[in-house]
C-alpha cells in the first residue's frame, strides 16, 4: 500500500510499455494483440469465402497472399482446410478468449472493484507474454513445410496425428499443439489472477451483491476456464505422445499410406470427450464476458437499473454450471451409447432456460428507459439479437434426434457463428466503444461507429443466416467446394451471395480500424465520466496512474445500478439521473434496487 502513496517514479520505456505489470497497460497489450490476430483470422475467412463463392476461379490476391498454398490463383484443397483450421483457432481462442477476457478482465476488474491492481502483477504480465509467444508460434506455423494445422479447430485424431493423412499434420500440427499449450498456461495464469483478485481485493463496501455484472461474468468465466482448460492441455499432451512417442491413446486399427500402423487399443472417441469437455465450456468462455459487458452498457445507456440483477447472476451461474455437463451434444453420432445421448439432450436443452431469462431481462431493461444510442449501445442491441437468433437454432442442434441430420452441416456453421462468433464480437466491440475513453483517454468517433455497426450487422446476418439453408439442403461443413455433387448444384447462388456479404463485412471492419487508430492518437480528449456511469472506474482520472486512485481507494455504499432513482417528490435523488457507487445511501434509502 505505502509504495503507492509516493508520487510515481518515471519508469523507463521497457518497463512501462513492454514488461509492464500494470493491469491497464496489460489490458491494452491484450487488446492490440487480440485485434491483430482477429484481423488475420478475418482475412483468412474472406480468402476462403472467395473459393466457396467462386469455386475454382482464379484470384491474383490469393496467389499474392497464399504463395505456395495456391496454384494459378486457386487455393489447394488441403490448404483450404489449413485456412479454415487456423481461422477457427484464431477466432475462438486468440480473439475471443484471450483478446476479449484479457482486455476487459484486466481493465475492469481492478477499476470496478476498487483495487490498486491485480493480485499478482507479475503473473499477470506473464499471462500476457505467454499469450504473445503463443500467438507468434501460431503465426509461424503458417509458414512451415507442409503448411499449418489442417484438421479443423477440433483437431480430431487420427487426422491430426498422422502426417500421412494430411500434410498439415506434420510440423504445422506440432507447432499448433505447442502454441496451444502455452496459450492454456497464459489463460490459467490470467484466470487464477482474476478469481483471486475479485474474491480478495474488493474495496470497502463492495460486497458480492454490489459487483457490476461485468465482474460477475468475468469471475464465472475464469472459474469455467480454470476447470476446463487443463483438460484440453491433457488431451493435447496425450496427442503429442501419440504423434511423437508411439503411444496409442487415440489410435487403433489404422491402415494408411500402404501400411498398417503399430498403434492399437486407443480410441479417437476418448479425444473427442476430452476435447469437448473444454470445447463446450469454451463457447461460454467467449459468451459470458460479452453478456456481462453488454448488461452494463444496456443499463447505463438506458438510464435504468439492469432488470433482475440477481436473476442475471443466477442465470450466469446456472449457465456456467450446465456448460460443464453438456459436451456430449457434439458427439451424438459418434456411436456413443444412445442413453448417454438422451442425458446430454436433456442437460443441453436446460441451458435454454437461463439463457431465455437473460434475454427477457435485457428487453425489460429497455422498457420505459431513456435510451441513448451510442455505438456501444447499438452493438449491445445487436448482441441481444444475435444471442436470440443463434440461441434458438441451438434447440435444434441440441435435440439428438434432430442433430442426426444437421450435425456437421452448414446449419452448425450458421448457428455457432451467430450465437458465439457474432455475440462474442459484438460484445467485445461494444466494450471497446464504451471503455475506449478509459483505455486511451480519448473518444471514438460516433458517426464512424454507427456506420461500422450498420455495415457489420447487415453483413453478418447476410453471411450467416443463409448458411442455415445450405445446412438444411445437406451441405457438409469443411468442404473445399460443393461443385462435386449434382445434389448441391443449384446452391451456388447462395454461396456467392454469402461471399459478397463477407467482403462487405471485411470492408466494414476497416472503418473501425481507421476510427480506432485515428482516435487513439488524435481523437477528442475524454471527460472523466462520458456516459454518466455509476461504477467505480469512472471515479478514476482520465490519465492512467499506477495504483488507479491518487489518494485513498473510495468506499462503496450502493449497487452500481441506481439510474433514474426518484425520491418521494418524483425528483432525482441527487439532482442527476445517476448515483455513483461512492455516494452514501440517504436516510431510509434501500440498496440494491429496493425502492
Amino acid at each position: 500500500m505505502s509504495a503507492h502513496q509516493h508520487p510515481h517514479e518515471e519508469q523507463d520505456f521497457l518497463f512501462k510499455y513492454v514488461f509492464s505489470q500494470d493491469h491497464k497497460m496489460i489490458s491494452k497489450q491484450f487488446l492490440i494483440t487480440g485485434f491483430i490476430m482477429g484481423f488475420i483470422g478475418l482475412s483468412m475467412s474472406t480468402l476462403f469465402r472467395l473459393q466457396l463463392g467462386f469455386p475454382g476461379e482464379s484470384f491474383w490476391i490469393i496467389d499474392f497472399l497464399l504463395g505456395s498454398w495456391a496454384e494459378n490463383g486457386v487455393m489447394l484443397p488441403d490448404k483450404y482446410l489449413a485456412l479454415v483450421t487456423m481461422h477457427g483457432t484464431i477466432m475462438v481462442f486468440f480473439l475471443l478468449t484471450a483478446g476479449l477476457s484479457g482486455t476487459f478482465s484486466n481493465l475492469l476488474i481492478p477499476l470496478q472493484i476498487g483495487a490498486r491492481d491485480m493480485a499478482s502483477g507479475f503473473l499477470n504480465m506473464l499471462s500476457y507474454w505467454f499469450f504473445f509467444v503463443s500467438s507468434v508460434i501460431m503465426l509461424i506455423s503458417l509458414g512451415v513445410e507442409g503448411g499449418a494445422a489442417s484438421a479443423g479447430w477440433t483437431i480430431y485424431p487420427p487426422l491430426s496425428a498422422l502426417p500421412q493423412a494430411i500434410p498439415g499434420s506434420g510440423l504445422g500440427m506440432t507447432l499448433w499443439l505447442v502454441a496451444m499449450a502455452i496459450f492454456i498456461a497464459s489463460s490459467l495464469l490470467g484466470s487464477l489472477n482474476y478469481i483471486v483478485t475479485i474474491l480478495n481485493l474488493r474495496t470497502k463496501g463492495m460486497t458480492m451483491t454490489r459487483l457490476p455484472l461485468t465482474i460477475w461474468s468475468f469471475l464465472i468465466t475464469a472459474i469455467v476456464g480454470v476447470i476446463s482448460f487443463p483438460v484440453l492441455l491433457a488431451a493435447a499432451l496425450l496427442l503429442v505422445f501419440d504423434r511423437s512417442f508411439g503411444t496409442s491413446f487415440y489410435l487403433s486399427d489404422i491402415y494408411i499410406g500402404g501400411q498398417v500402423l503399430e498403434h492399437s487399443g486407443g480410441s479417437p472417441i476418448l479425444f473427442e470427450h476430452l476435447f469437448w469437455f473444454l470445447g463446450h465450456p469454451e463457447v461460454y468462455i467467449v459468451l459470458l464476458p460479452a453478456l456481462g459487458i453488454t448488461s452494463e452498457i444496456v443499463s447505463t445507456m438506458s438510464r435504468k437499473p439492469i432488470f433482475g440483477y440477481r436473476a442475471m447472476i443466477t442465470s450466469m451461474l446456472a449457465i456456467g454450471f450446465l456448460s460443464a455437463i453438456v459436451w456430449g451434444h457434439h458427439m451424438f453420432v459418434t456411436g456413443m451409447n444412445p442413453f448417454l445421448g438422451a442425458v446430454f439432450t436433456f442437460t443441453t436443452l436446460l441451458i435454454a432456460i437461463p439463457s431465455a431469462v437473460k434475454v427477457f431481462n435485457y428487453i425489460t431493461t429497455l422498457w420505459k428507459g431513456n435510451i441513448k444510442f451510442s455505438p456501444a449501445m447499438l452493438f449491445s442491441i445487436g448482441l441481444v439479437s444475435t444471442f436470440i437468433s443463434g440461441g434458438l437454432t441451438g434447440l435444434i442442434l441440441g435435440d439428438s434426434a434432430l442433430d442426426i441430420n444437421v450435425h456437421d452441416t452448414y446449419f452448425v456453421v450458421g448457428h455457432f457463428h451467430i450465437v458465439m462468433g457474432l455475440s462474442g464480437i459484438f460484445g467485445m466491440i461494444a466494450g471497446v466503444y464504451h471503455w475506449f475513453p478509459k483505455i486511451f483517454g480519448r473518444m471514438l468517433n460516433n458517426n464512424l461507429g454507427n456506420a461500422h455497426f450498420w455495415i457489420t450487422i447487415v453483413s453478418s446476418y447476410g453471411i450467416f443466416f443463409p448458411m442455415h439453408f445450405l445446412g438444411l439442403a445437406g451441405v457438409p461443413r469443411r468442404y473445399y467446394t460443393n461443385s462435386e455433387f449434382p445434389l448441391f448444384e443449384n446452391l451456388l447462388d447462395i454461396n456467392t451471395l454469402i461471399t459478397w456479404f463477407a467482403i462487405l463485412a471485411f470492408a466494414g471492419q476497416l472503418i473501425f480500424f481507421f476510427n480506432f487508430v485515428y482516435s487513439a492518437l488524435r481523437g477528442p480528449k475524454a471527460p472523466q465520466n462520458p456516459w454518466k456511469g455509476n461504477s467505480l472506474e469512472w471515479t478514476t482520472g482520465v490519465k492512467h496512474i499506477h495504483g488507479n486512485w491518487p489518494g485513498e481507494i473510495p468506499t462503496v455504499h450502493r449497487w452500481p445500478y441506481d439510474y433514474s432513482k426518484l425520491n418521494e417528490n418524483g425528483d432525482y435523488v441527487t439532482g442527476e439521473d445517476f448515483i455513483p457507487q461512492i455516494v452514501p445511501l440517504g436516510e431510509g434509502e434501500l440498496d440494491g434496487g429496493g425502492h
Partner: protein
Amino acid sequence: MIALVAIVAVLLVIATAVQILKIAELRATESGKEIYEISAKQSKAQAFLLMVFLVAYFGFFAWQVWKWGGLMLPVSASEHGVGVDELMNITLWFIIPVFIITHIFLFWFSYKYSFSETRKALFFSHSNKLEMFWTIIPSVALTVLILVGLSNWNKIMTPISSETEHVLLEVCGQQFMWGARYAGKDGKLGRASVEYIEGVNALGIDVSDENSKDDKIVKGEFHLPVGVPVQFVFRSQDVLHSAYMPHFRAQMNCVPGLKTQFNFTPTITTAEMKEKTQNENFEYILLCNKICGAAHYNMQMNIVVESKEDYEKWLAEQKEFGAE
C-alpha cells in the same frame, strides 16, 4: 474482376469514413457541443434505423424461405425420417414465433424509448412475478420438446432385432472413398481388420473366416430394397469419416478401431423420388461428413432404392467374396 470490384469497394468505404469524420468535426465546432455528445435527434435517427433493420431482417428471412425453400432436402425417404421431420416442424413452430416476438419487443422498445431531454426513465429493478413467469414458460415448452425429441431418439437408435427380416450392410470409409459389403446368404459379415488389407482385398476381409465367403463387396453404388429395414455397420480404415445419407435423415461416424451402427427403413424408391422432385437426375447419396483430409469434399457413393425384386436381381449379379 471480382477482386477489382472488391478493392474499389474497400477504397470507397475508407474514403467515406474519412468524409464522415470530417463532417462530424465541422458540425461539432459549429454547434459548440462536444463532438462525442449524442443528441436526442441523433439517438432518434439510430432508433429509426433499428426499426428499418427489424423490417429488413424479417423481410430477408421471408425472402430466403421463398427463394430457397424449394432447394431444401425433399421429404424424408426413410420411416424414422418422417418422425424427425415432424419434430423439426414442431421445433420450428416454436422457434420462429419466439424469434419474431422477442425481436419485435427488442426493437420496438429501442425505438419507442429513445432518448428525450424531458422524459425520465422508470426505476424498475426487478419483479418476482415477471421473472417467475418467464422462467416457467420456457421450462414448459422445453419439457415438451425434450419429451418428443427423446421418444424419437430412442426409437431411431434401437437396433433391429435379429428376428425381423433385414439387410445387413457394412460401410467402410477410407481416404477418400467408400466401400460397401453385404452380409450374403448367411446374414453374417465375415471378420475384417486392417491387417488383412492387401491388393484387391481393400476392405481387409479375413479370407479364412467362413462367414466371409458369401459376403458381397460392391463399388460405386449400393442398392436397398424399399420397405425392408437396413442394419448398417460402419468402419473406417484410417481416419474418422462420417457416413451421411441426408435423404434418409441418417448419419453415423466411422471410427477406426470401433464398429458403429445405425438402421433405417427406406420408404421411397429412387424412381419415385425422381418423380416427386421432378428431377430426372435425382440420386440418393452417401457422402462424408467428417473432415478426413484433402479430398474430404469429394467422397461419395450413390444409393439406389428399388423394389425388392429388382434389388434381389441386382444382388444376385454381384460376386461373392469367396468366388475367386
